[in-house]
């Protein structure tokens, strides 16, 4: 595996048992994600986008197929090792922001750093990241005191504060208006350029697709197209 390849998926399959019904979410997805990618995964609802992100984010395990994440075969990892891998190398941004409602914006960002074992410097780092995303004056506000765009930027700050190598974003702009969506994408592009953070999005949003360096199309749980673009 090249040192440039962060994620290596080979014939990845995932099925869900929903009572008597077996639902195939992924049916043999093979895909590499490289360092520096700004990659979007597009496809209709139910095509397996979120499932793929969950597998890459080691939140779930494949039914069959191989998945190497940062050189680790995910099939051999224990629950604790997967949590550790997520903490050290991954960041997550969700469609519904999913900030902890009882913590302030700064504390939401600090929480990840505290889980990593950072001491006094976590506050400084949290404020640095919030500043990078234009949230320096909003650190003491709770999520219910922020707009949707601001909340999503805090979620991005939380995702990047620990300096992950890869950020997985599941429909991050779905709940944002046009202006906030563009602002968010610009910020993530900047982080991709300046901090060399790899981004993988699942999205329906053409504004995100427009900025992507690479677009992978999933249909019925399979890769139907993989396009490199000059952006």
């Amino acid at each position, binding site marked *: 595996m090249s040192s440039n390849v962060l994620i290596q998926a080979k014939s990845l399959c995932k099925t869900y048992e929903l009572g008597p019904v077996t639902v195939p979410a992924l049916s043999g997805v093979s895909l590499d994600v490289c360092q520096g990618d700004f990659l979007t995964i597009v496809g209709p609802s139910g095509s397996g986008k*979120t499932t793929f992100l969950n597998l890459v984010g080691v939140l*779930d395990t494949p039914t069959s197929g191989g998945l190497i994440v940062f050189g680790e075969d995910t099939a051999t990892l224990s629950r604790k090792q997967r949590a550790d891998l997520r903490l050290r190398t991954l960041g997550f941004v969700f469609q519904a922001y999913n900030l902890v409602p*009882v913590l302030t914006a700064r504390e939401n960002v600090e929480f990840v750093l505290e889980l990593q074992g950072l001491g006094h410097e976590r506050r400084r780092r949290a404020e640095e990241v919030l500043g990078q995303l234009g949230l320096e004056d909003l650190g003491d506000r709770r999520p219910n005191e922020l707009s949707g765009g601001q909340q999503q930027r805090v979620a991005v700050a939380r995702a990047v504060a620990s300096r992950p190598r890869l950020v997985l974003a599941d429909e991050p702009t779905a709940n944002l208006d046009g202006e906030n969506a563009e602002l968010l994408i610009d910020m993530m592009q900047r982080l991709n350029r300046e901090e060399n953070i790899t981004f993988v999005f699942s999205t329906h949003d053409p504004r995100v697709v427009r900025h992507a360096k690479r677009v992978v199309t999933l249909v019925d749980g399979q890769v139907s197209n993989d396009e490199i673009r000059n952006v």
Partner: protein
Amino acid sequence: MTSSIASRYALRSLLRHKRRTFLSVVGIGVGCGVCLFLVSYVRGESEMMMRAAAQSGTGHLRIAPRQWLETRNDDLRLADWGTGMAMAEKLDGVACATPHARTDALLAMGTRTVGVTLTGVDPEREPHLNRLIRKVTLGTYLTSGETGIVVIGKGIAERLDVGLDDDILVTASGQDGQIQGAMLRVVGIVATGSRALDTQVCHVLLEDVSRITDRRGPAEISILLDTPKRYRETADLLQQHVGGESVVLTWEELIPELAAAVEVDKTWTRLMVGVVVLVVFLGIASAQLAAVLERRREFAVLSAIGMKGGQLIRIMLTESLLLGLFGGLLSLAIGLPVVAFSATHGIDFSGLYGDADLSVSSILIDPIIYGDAGWWLVPLALGLSLTATMLSSLYPAWYALRTDPANALRVEH
């Protein structure tokens, strides 16, 4: 020093649903407050029983001949009672020590007779130990050096139809089994407040018992303690000094039926406390589980950002710890005034007794129970509340750990 984010998260999670947290804390507070009162009450009742036994002539401790415990034979005499008395009086915590000798006897006046246990006493020391004879309603108590006199209970006086300065005949079995007799002049009549005990009190000087029974010296030394809670330690210490021919007995060994009654009460109280703690435990477990179910997505997100199972458990235990702490403090706020009132004013059960006799096993019972109060209430309150809350969070924590983050996030999606 700044607090950890995890601690702040735990505290603020409790404050998220103020009403639920308030009700949980009140549940813990009331439950544990009730437990505090129950334990205080039964400790006070035990203390009352012990005090009643000790001050009814038994003492907290007794030095007796070693064979007495098996035979309960009042004819036995102490081998070296002077040494035993000296040892007892020297010990810290001993309020008084007094010798006794007893024999079964028959009192007669004309054609009237009544069987009694004749108790030989030291009249200088006896009133310090025995509260029953402090209520000499007619005449006086015994006087040192004046032999041939007797103080009897009101019930005996009525049965014999005697009054002060009347001479009554006493007969008892001597050392060789021969019937011995003597005349005793009534110098005092006692009303104890118990009809049963009024027919039992019959005190003479030790010298008179020796004269009537031909057995010299006392059969026992009864000891009253200043620090009754340490009676077992004092007994052990005294036993080391009195030698092998004598044995030091506690009030529990002297009146085992009373000790058994006290133990039954304690066992019931432990059971009641256990039931209350169980109810609190189930209530908190239910509330905690509801909180976990509401926060499944939140836990899934925390798992996604890298929180490990152990860290999640610590957060949930912190929440339980805080609940237990607040509940424990509330239980003290509720329980302490009630305990303090019962400890100072007592709970008066005399109305429930009505005309019933206030004696049990020759012990005059106090119908007013004073609760026991002390600093031990604080660790008890916190111990009960923290035990209930920490244990109650185990199942919800286990449930939270089993949450599949991908599933929880997908469902919410």
